[in-house]
């Protein structure tokens, strides 16, 4: 029969007893401390509740007043404090606020090893939290103390030393001072110890060498045979976490200088070890797949090795097997994304497995934003395959609809990831672009192209540019109606040069295709064409100028009226006679692509069949453009050279004006 709970078993009762025990004898203190420890151990809710009731200051008060000979009491105090600090930042904060730190440090020099163990464990818990104070390695005293910890013959104390490094070493200078003080060597020595010593040492070893080629070249790497050999050996250790950490260290060494890990055998071995660790259902498996993902990122050679090691099959099997946690899914998608970033063979495998593609697509609606981003990146890299884009593989409702939904996501990083993926998918060559337009995608892309965030704006315009590539006339009209000349004009004049470049490329695609498409830049009194012309006169980035010049080139491939409008942009009547035409500046550019675009525009303007061709040739000659072309007949760029010859040939049909 349930009865009323005794007040002594409620947290308030225990706290009361804890406070009064401070005045009591050792036995009473011990009893209540044991009871408290048993209550909170592994129970986050209870920890928070006792912290709120002020249990920590009472425990610290008992610790500070305890005699150094009260070994059991010291152990119980330290254990309780360690438990409060374990995995709960509020606990760490409470422990630090009550001044427990120096008392715990004192315990490390206690003659009883059990007391030392308890003190070291509690301090280790504190250093595993982000809120722990940063250790100053530049204080000589501190470095001496740290080295003394690593030299102790006690795994908890050496583990504490390693935790301090893992927690506090962040800068290159800190890495260097630790290296110079011989810490790396001591950590290597500790690799021969117990499992926990090994893992703690590997973790802090990784912290010291991370992204620091100087430290690596000085202290580790294949030329330091012993270290290298030990790390290689540890990749075969019986404990999964040790194997993972050894791989992490070797990968960090390789990242600092790829020459450090040239052996294909070792590279493949690392991939296989990490793949095998995927079977670990916990944190090790999660971290292993993320480590694999970063290992192969930006390295086509490693991606090839991973492909040959059947990584894709293994990951695809794994992700279809069971309901996976967010972190695991994220790691799998990022690894698949990296594999598909360059290699068509990898994309083919996934695309030929409808189940695998379904898992990726389904993850676009996952509750975790990180997973949604990773699924987008994965799909984006898979869709770099022109072969499958050409087959219309991606332009299906199952893929497109969730992606369009992500454009409304509350997370900006998800929106950007979705925009990047859509940019690729809408290249689609199969005339199914209308599906995207009809599904409301364009409306939201246009909306995002007006975002205050320049990354969102850039990627929205990028997607519209790719959508506009070889689009049919009906869709083109729909997109333009949604965008309007005014929005497009402000994008062409955007403060960001990258947005300008994409917007101009969009306009270029807009006026390509059937000749009447050119009319789009003449709507609203030529608002858009004038904006393009202004950019050509004012922009400095060649990427912007190239796209702007191709817009004029495409317009100049139209009718007489269009050609004259381009002439007006290149040689405005308002400019004084001394003003050098932008065309001459473009032709003199060091960038071959810009010279090519400029000469193509002249080719289009001087096609002899046009009624106004002669007048245009005369104007171009008077502006010094024809003589500039003559200087370019042996341009180092073959493409430019050939177009210059065409342009000059066309100009000459009206007679040589050189005399």
């Amino acid at each position, binding site marked *: 029969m349930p009865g009323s709970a005794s007040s002594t078993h409620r947290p308030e009762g225990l706290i009361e007893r804890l406070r009064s025990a401070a005045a009591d004898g050792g036995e009473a203190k011990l009893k209540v401390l044991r009871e408290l420890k048993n209550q909170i151990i592994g129970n986050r809710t209870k920890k928070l509740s006792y912290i709120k009731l002020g249990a920590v200051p009472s425990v610290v008060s008992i610790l500070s007043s305890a005699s150094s000979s009260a070994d059991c009491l010291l152990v119980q105090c330290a254990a309780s404090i360690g438990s409060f600090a374990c995995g709960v930042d509020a606990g760490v904060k409470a422990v630090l606020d009550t001044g427990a730190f120096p008392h715990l440090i004192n315990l490390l020099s206690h003659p009883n090893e059990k007391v030392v163990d308890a003190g070291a464990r509690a301090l280790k818990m504190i250093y595993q939290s982000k809120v722990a104070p940063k250790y100053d390695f530049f204080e000589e005293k501190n470095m001496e103390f740290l080295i003394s910890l690593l030299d102790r013959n006690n795994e908890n104390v050496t583990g504490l030393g390693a935790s301090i490094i893992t927690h506090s070493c962040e800068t290159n200078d800190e890495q260097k001072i630790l290296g110079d003080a011989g810490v790396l060597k001591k950590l290597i020595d500790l690799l021969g110890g117990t499992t926990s010593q090994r893992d703690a040492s590997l973790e802090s070893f990784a912290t010291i060498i991370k992204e620091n080629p100087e430290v690596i070249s000085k202290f580790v790497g294949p030329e330091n045979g012993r270290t290298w050999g030990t790390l290689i050996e540890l990749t075969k250790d019986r404990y999964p976490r040790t194997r993972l950490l050894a791989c992490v260290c070797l990968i960090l060494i390789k990242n600092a200088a790829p020459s450090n890990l040239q052996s294909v055998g070792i590279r493949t071995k690392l991939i296989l070890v990490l793949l095998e660790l995927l079977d670990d259902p916990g944190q090790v498996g999660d971290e292993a797949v993320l480590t694999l993902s970063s290992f192969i990122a930006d390295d086509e050679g490693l991606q090839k090795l991973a492909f040959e090691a059947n990584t894709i099959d293994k990951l695809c099997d794994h992700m279809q097997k069971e309901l996976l946690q967010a972190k695991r899914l994220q790691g799998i998608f990022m690894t698949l994304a990296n594999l598909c970033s360059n290699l068509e063979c990898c994309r083919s495998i996934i695309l030929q497995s409808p189940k695998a593609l379904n898992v990726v697509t389904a993850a676009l609606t996952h509750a975790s934003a990180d997973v949604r981003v990773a699924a987008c990146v994965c799909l984006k890299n898979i869709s770099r395959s022109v072969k499958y884009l050409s087959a219309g593989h991606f332009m299906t409702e199952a893929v497109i609809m969730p992606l369009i939904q992500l454009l409304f996501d509350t997370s900006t990083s998800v929106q950007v990831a979705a925009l990047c993926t859509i940019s690729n998918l809408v290249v689609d060559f199969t005339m199914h672009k209308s599906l995207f337009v009809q599904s409301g995608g364009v409306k939201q892309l246009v909306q995002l192209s007006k975002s205050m965030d320049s990354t969102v704006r850039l990627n929205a315009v990028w997607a519209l540019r790719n959508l506009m590539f070889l689009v049919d006339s009906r869709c083109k009209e729909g997109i333009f109606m949604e965008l309007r000349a005014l929005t497009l004009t402000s994008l062409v004049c955007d403060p960001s040069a990258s947005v300008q470049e994409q917007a101009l490329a969009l306009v270029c695609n807009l006026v390509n295709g059937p000749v009447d498409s050119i009319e789009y830049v003449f709507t609203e009194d030529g608002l858009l064409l004038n904006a393009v012309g202004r950019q050509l006169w004012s922009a400095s980035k060649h990427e912007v100028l190239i796209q702007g010049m191709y817009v004029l080139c495409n317009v100049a*491939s*139209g009718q007489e009226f269009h050609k004259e409008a381009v002439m007006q942009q290149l040689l405005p009547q308002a400019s004084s006679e001394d003003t050098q035409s932008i065309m001459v500046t473009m032709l003199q550019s060091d960038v071959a692509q810009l010279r090519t675009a400029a000469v193509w525009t002249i080719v*289009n303007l001087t096609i002899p069949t046009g009624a106004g061709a002669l007048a245009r040739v005369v104007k171009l000659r008077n502006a010094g453009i024809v003589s500039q072309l003559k200087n370019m007949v042996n341009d180092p760029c073959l493409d430019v050279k*050939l177009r210059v010859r065409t342009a000059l040939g066309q100009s000459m049909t009206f007679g040589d004006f050189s005399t």
Partner: protein
Amino acid sequence: MPVRMVESPAPSNSSGANPGQTSLQPCSLLSVGQAFSGTQNVSSPQKEEAWRVNVRIQGCDLNHGYLCGTMEALNVPMADTPVVTFWEGEIVDTKNYTFFTNKWKATSEVDIEHWTKFPSFSPLLSQVEVDGGKSLDLSNYQYIFMRWKEQYFVNVGADCGLTIAGFYYVCFSCVDGSINGYYYDPNSSPFQKLELKTTNEGRSGFSFSSYELQ
């Protein structure tokens, strides 16, 4: 462009070439979005015949010597609609690919027999006979040699009675964008000639479009 199926096609080998830096310069007439039209002569001893053909470049990666696009055959007798195929091209840049095919049932003799049909190939012949052209520098050459291999039918089933088992030896002129090619398939009529010219879609000049994958 597909041709009439004579017998079931044998599978082709995949490429084993190592990617490397190309020695070719980009040519704007051979860039994505560019369209070409012309004919393929499919005459047999019994009958003179030519199919109208449209080509569109869809992808170009000069670093890997790769080009791809679609080919549309317009008046194929046994098809109700134009037949569209997707092809992938190997650009002979002497780094990623040489003049020797080494697959698709093409021996070096067959290669030379086809390449020599292009007048622009004759200055290269003697060196190609030695090493497939590996030591040639084609960076300033006004012609680009390629092999185009159709990979799949875009708008009809593989059971349409047509075959894409062969491949084309192609010569592209950087000067005017004209394309000449010869179809090779040991089971089809030899030396079917492909002749294409750049199209301007009713314009008085050249127009360009582009996309950029992320």
